[in-house]
Structure formats: structure tokens, C-alpha cells
């Protein structure tokens, strides 16, 4: 068997000189097999303090009830559901990278899928805690399950979008966890076979006895492909169903058929922004520049630009349809969003989500790491405002002007939100310490096909169109991990 050589005009997915299979294992396992550095500790302590704030705020909510939050009779959903939708949306990028890009044969997913999937799981954990917390009496959460009971049995309401949400989120979380863990098995075995003593025993249990035999790999690949195939419609269904929470209501501003695709696009948009926030830092701190290259960063920025534009079109369409419907309540809901007391939230959303991603049309900005990182934060702020605008501004002025109200968060509201970010980062930082943050086995697949080194070998062998080689060399100039001096002589 000869390895399929990739066309020379494609940018390499892995850079670095003298890359070997052993070096890939060593470099990726470096943070797992060594003591953490100062940057990790600082990050961990700050995140853990945030997680502590979360514990305190959630405990107060459970102890005293939802009165701890700033909700009132008019605005019955506010930061809780905003936070929930925000986190679920963020989770979507992980599944998109691991499943959709696998189906489409996008090999650049190989180096980012692991951490993106981990991000999905931690984000969905944060989202699920909001769901449980906003029930007010979390110990009655089992009421959402169709269990026989002494009231009849009076069953759950299958006609409710909230019930669909319970099924969608729980399926999404468990299938994502399964997909992530199955993919981890070969890499856990890599840690196991290098470890000694207690570490070896722990990783041995976690590795399920993985050996990497022929039949194991064959089945593993079948399972991965089918899981990807079913996760793709799953991820689309999840945010579609989340949007049903609003779209199936009769609330002006919510009662919109455009919601499902618009929510899915927004989810991918915010998810890629969060992947960018995490990976640009991880890449630097863990020294993964050869694996998460400028090509990956630029590709993700292009997706952010595309989905940001889709979201922008959706915002404008909503406005158009409100006018076109000639329903005065619908029209008021939108005019109120843009010019009412929450105008600042609306225009924050518009500028963060619609205007700022358009800056990525500039290749210079798309390839700037500080700019990409800053913009990823801007997008996440914008997407939080999007959910806030949809939820709070639609509710705060209802049909009876005497009941119009504003929403003012209490410090517990703020604590739950800031705390959930702390929880998320705590989990992510623990993850990069105990499990490989890049899928080792999958990255090894790139070494002989899509790496800079393999392409360099092809150039040295000759037989290539000089124009194509020139094109390739020019494409390398954007990489911060490639030394262009190596290409002067060849």
C-alpha cells in the first residue's frame, strides 16, 4: 500500500521538522506526564474560585428558591434560560467538528476534535445545571420523566417543547460523552503503556484493555463513522428543539418559524468562537503550534464569518417578517427591541454578532492570533446578548402596559453565570492535565500525508509542477510555525 499523497497545493495540516510518531506522542502527552506549569496553576486557581462562586450561588438558589434571582411576574425567564441557551449553543461546535467534519472528510478536524468535544461536554454540563436550577425545586426534576405516579398516572406533557428539550439535551449529552470517550480509548492506552505504578493501573482501567489490534481498529473506525453519522442530525435537532421552547409559543418575538435554522447557525457561530478562545491559549501554553496551525485558526475564522453572516441575515429577516406580517404586537416587539429601554442590549448584539465578524474578510485579521482571540470573546458576548434580547425584551413588555417591567439581575444571578464560566474552565483545565488534548492516533494519520514534512519530501523528490510548488510555498508564509528559510534552497 502506498500512502495517498495529498495534492501539493493544499496547505499542510501539521508543521515541524523531524516529526516522528514518537515525537507526536511525546509532545501531546507532555502536559499529561509532567507537573503543570505556572500558567496552568494561575488559570486553575482563578477558574476554581469562579466555580466556588457557582457553588455558593446555586446553593443559595436551592436553599431559598428562585426568589434569589431577579425574576418578576412579567419577566419569568431571564439570565437562567439565556445562560442555558448560550451554553448549549457553545457545545455545538464540538459535535460539528467531530461529526460533521468527519463525514465531509475534513482532516483538519483531527487536531482540534478532542478538545472541542471536551468543550461540548463541559458546556452541556453548564447548560444542564441551569435547567435543573431554574426548576426551583431541583429535587423534583424527575417529574420530567414519564414515570408511573399516584396522580392517575398523570403522565408528562408530550405536547410540550420543554419535554422535547429534556429528551434532546439528555440524548445529546450522553451521545457526546460516548463519542468522546470511545475516541479517547486508543490515546488512554498510549498513556497507560508509558506509565508506571499507580498511574498505569488507573489508565489501565480507563483504557478498557485497548490493544490496537487490527480488528479493534476496524470496528473502532466503523463505530466512529456511524456515531458521526447519527450525531450530525442529532446536533441539528438539539438546537432546533431548543428554539422550539420559544418558537412554539404565541409570544410576539418568539413565535417565529425562522428560529430553528437561525438558532443552529448561532450555535455553531458561538461554539467556534469558544473553541477559538480556548485553543488559541491552549496552543500557546501547551506548545501545540505544530498541530493547531494557522490553517486551523483561519478555517475556524472563516466558519465564524459565515455563520455570523447567516445570523445577521436572520436578524434582518425577523424584522422584515414582523413588518410584513402587519401584526402590530409583533411589530412592537421588534421596534421595542431596537429602540426601547433595552436598545443597548440589542445594539451590542448587532455590533458583536453581525458587524464584527465581517472584519474577517480581511485575511490579515483572520490570521492575526491576538485579533482572532479578541474577536472570539466579542462574539461570545454578542451571542449572550442575542439570547438575552430574545428572552427578556420579548417578555418585559407584554399585552398589558400596567404589567410592563424591567429585569434587574441580583448578585446571585450574576454569580450563577460567572460561576458557570468558572466551572467550565475548571473542567477544561483538569481535562488538559489528565487526558491528551489532541487526538494522538488521529494526528499520526496526518504525518505521512498532510504534514509539512511529507510535502517537503515531495518537493525534494521533484516531479511536481513548479507553479504549484510556488503556490504552496506562498501559502506557507501565513504559518507562524514554519521557517521559510528552509524553503529558499528547495
Amino acid at each position, binding site marked *: *500500500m502506498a*500512502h495517498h499523497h495529498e495534492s501539493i497545493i493544499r496547505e499542510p495540516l501539521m508543521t515541524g521538522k523531524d516529526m*516522528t*510518531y*514518537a515525537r507526536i*506522542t511525546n509532545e501531546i502527552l507532555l502536559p499529561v506526564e509532567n507537573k503543570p506549569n505556572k500558567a496552568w496553576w494561575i488559570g486553575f486557581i482563578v477558574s476554581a474560585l469562579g466555580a466556588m462562586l457557582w457553588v455558593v450561588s446555586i446553593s443559595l438558589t436551592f436553599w431559598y428558591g428562585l426568589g434569589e434571582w431577579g425574576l418578576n411576574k412579567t419577566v419569568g425567564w431571564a439570565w437562567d434560560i439565556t445562560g442555558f441557551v448560550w451554553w448549549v449553543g457553545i457545545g455545538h461546535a464540538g459535535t460539528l467538528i467531530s461529526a460533521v467534519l468527519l463525514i465531509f472528510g475534513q482532516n483538519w478536524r483531527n487536531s482540534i476534535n478532542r478538545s472541542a468535544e471536551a468543550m461540548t461536554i463541559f458546556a452541556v454540563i453548564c447548560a444542564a445545571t441551569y435547567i435543573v436550577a431554574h426548576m426551583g425545586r431541583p429535587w423534583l426534576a424527575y417529574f420530567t420523566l*414519564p414515570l408511573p405516579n399516584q396522580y*392517575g*398516572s*398523570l*403522565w*408528562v406533557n*408530550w*405536547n410540550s417543547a420543554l419535554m422535547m428539550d429534556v*429528551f*434532546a439535551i439528555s*440524548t445529546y449529552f*450522553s*451521545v457526546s460523552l*460516548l*463519542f468522546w470517550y*470511545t475516541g479517547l*480509548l*486508543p490515546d488512554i*492506552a*498510549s498513556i*497507560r*503503556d*508509558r506509565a508506571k505504578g499507580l498511574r498505569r493501573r488507573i489508565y*489501565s*482501567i480507563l*483504557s*478498557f*484493555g*485497548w*490493544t*490496537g489490534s*487490527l*480488528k*479493534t*481498529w*476496524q*470496528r*473502532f*473506525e*466503523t*463505530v466512529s463513522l*456511524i*456515531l458521526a453519522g*447519527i*450525531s450530525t*442530525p*442529532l446536533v441539528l*435537532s438539539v438546537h432546533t*428543539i431548543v428554539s422550539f421552547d420559544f418558537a412554539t409559543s404565541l409570544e410576539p418575538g418568539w413565535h417565529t418559524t425562522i428560529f430553528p435554522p437561525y438558532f443552529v447557525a448561532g450555535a455553531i457561530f458561538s461554539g467556534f468562537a469558544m473553541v477559538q478562545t480556548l485553543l488559541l491559549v491552549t496552543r500557546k501554553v501547551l506548545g501545540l503550534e505544530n498541530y493547531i496551525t494557522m490553517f486551523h485558526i483561519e478555517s475556524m475564522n472563516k466558519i465564524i464569518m459565515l455563520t455570523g453572516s447567516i445570523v445577521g441575515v436572520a436578524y434582518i429577516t425577523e424584522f422584515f417578517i414582523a413588518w410584513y406580517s402587519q401584526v402590530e404586537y409583533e411589530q412592537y416587539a421588534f421596534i421595542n427591541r431596537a429602540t426601547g429601554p433595552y436598545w443597548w442590549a440589542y445594539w451590542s448584539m448587532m455590533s458583536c454578532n453581525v458587524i464584527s465578524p465581517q472584519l474577517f474578510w480581511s485575511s490579515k485579521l483572520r490570521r492575526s492570533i491576538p485579533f482572532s482571540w479578541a474577536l472570539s470573546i466579542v462574539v461570545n458576548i454578542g451571542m449572550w446578548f442575542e439570547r438575552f434580547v430574545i428572552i427578556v425584551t420579548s417578555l418585559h413588555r407584554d399585552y398589558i402596559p400596567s404589567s410592563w417591567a424591567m429585569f434587574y439581575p441580583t448578585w446571585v444571578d450574576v454569580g450563577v453565570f460567572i460561576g458557570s464560566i468558572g466551572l467550565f474552565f475548571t473542567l477544561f483545565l483538569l481535562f488538559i492535565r489528565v487526558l491528551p488534548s489532541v487526538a494522538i*492516533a*488521529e494526528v*499520526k*494519520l496526518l504525518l*505521512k500525508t498532510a504534514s509539512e514534512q511529507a510535502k517537503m519530501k515531495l518537493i525534494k523528490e521533484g516531479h511536481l509542477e513548479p507553479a504549484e510548488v510556488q503556490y504552496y510555498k506562498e501559502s506557507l508564509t501565513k504559518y507562524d510555525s514554519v521557517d521559510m528559510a528552509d524553503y529558499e534552497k528547495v
Partner: protein
Amino acid sequence: MSKTKFILGCFDDPDNMMQGITNLQKNSVPIYDVYTPMPIHGIEAKMGVKDSRLGYAAFCFGCLGATVIFSIVYYTLVHDWPQNIGGKPSFAIPDFVPFTFEWTILFTAFGMTITFFAATHLFPGRAPRVMDLRATDDRFIIAVDAKGNIPHDDITNLLKEAGAVEVKHNERKYVSYE
């Protein structure tokens, strides 16, 4: 009588390992198994390994999941406690769709993966049966059962010719763990 139980051809390159398989097959030396740190594409055809049937399992589990949840929703919503909601029919199929869809996915995923674990003998705590500790790192291992496959030196030479960086004559089948 040699004490060698397994002969391992250790390669540092998957293409050389494939050549090693060719060399052994040409000389009718049966291969016990191949251990690699990553999936090798095209190896199944070469080794004559049949396609995985996990797809069929996945399909069956998917059908099961759809049936189970559809039955639960039908029983509770239509049969056991039908409600008159504005005179609309209790058996409202659109409401069944999200639940049926989600559990089809759920059962497919878990059913198939558990079948994979069971068929491959993977479960938490299973003692790893590893022939060479570098097979999960940077070595591509061809394992040949030494019993009946003689002379061993010829096998060694076939593997070396293909570019094996090392050929091991192991007296124990598994080097890992007691």
C-alpha cells in the same frame, strides 16, 4: 525445542509494515495479529478481514429505540390518559417526531458502542493484552505465532527485508501485566 512463543516484527513505518505482511503472505506464514498506534487504511483487504457488521447492529438498535419511545408516548398520551386539548386529536403524530428521533439516536449510539465493546472484549478494568508496549506509541507490530511456524530465522529475515527495525522472539505472549 525453542522456547519462543511469538515472533514480533517491529516497524517504525506503516508502509514497511505492509511490505512485511506481503513478505509473510508470499511465503505462506500465517499472521496472528497486527498492532498499530493508529488505524491503517487498506489493511483489512490485505489481511482478508471481513467488513465489520456493526452497522447492522446499529440499525437494529435504532429501530428498537424508535419502537420503545413511540410505544411509551402512544401508551401515555393516547391510550392511558387521553386529554381533550381544544378538541385536537390525542394521537398527534408531529409531537411524536422529536421523541422518536432522539431515542432512535440514543439507542443506536449506545447499542452499537456496547456491541463493539462486547465483541472486542473492551470493558473498564480489563487487563490489557499487550505484546509490545510501543504498539500504542511509535511501533507497528506484526505478531506471528511461533508454534508451527518454523524456521524462525526465515521469518526474521522476511521481516527484516521489509524494513523491520527490530524482530523480537518473545517467550511470553503478553509483556504487559501479570
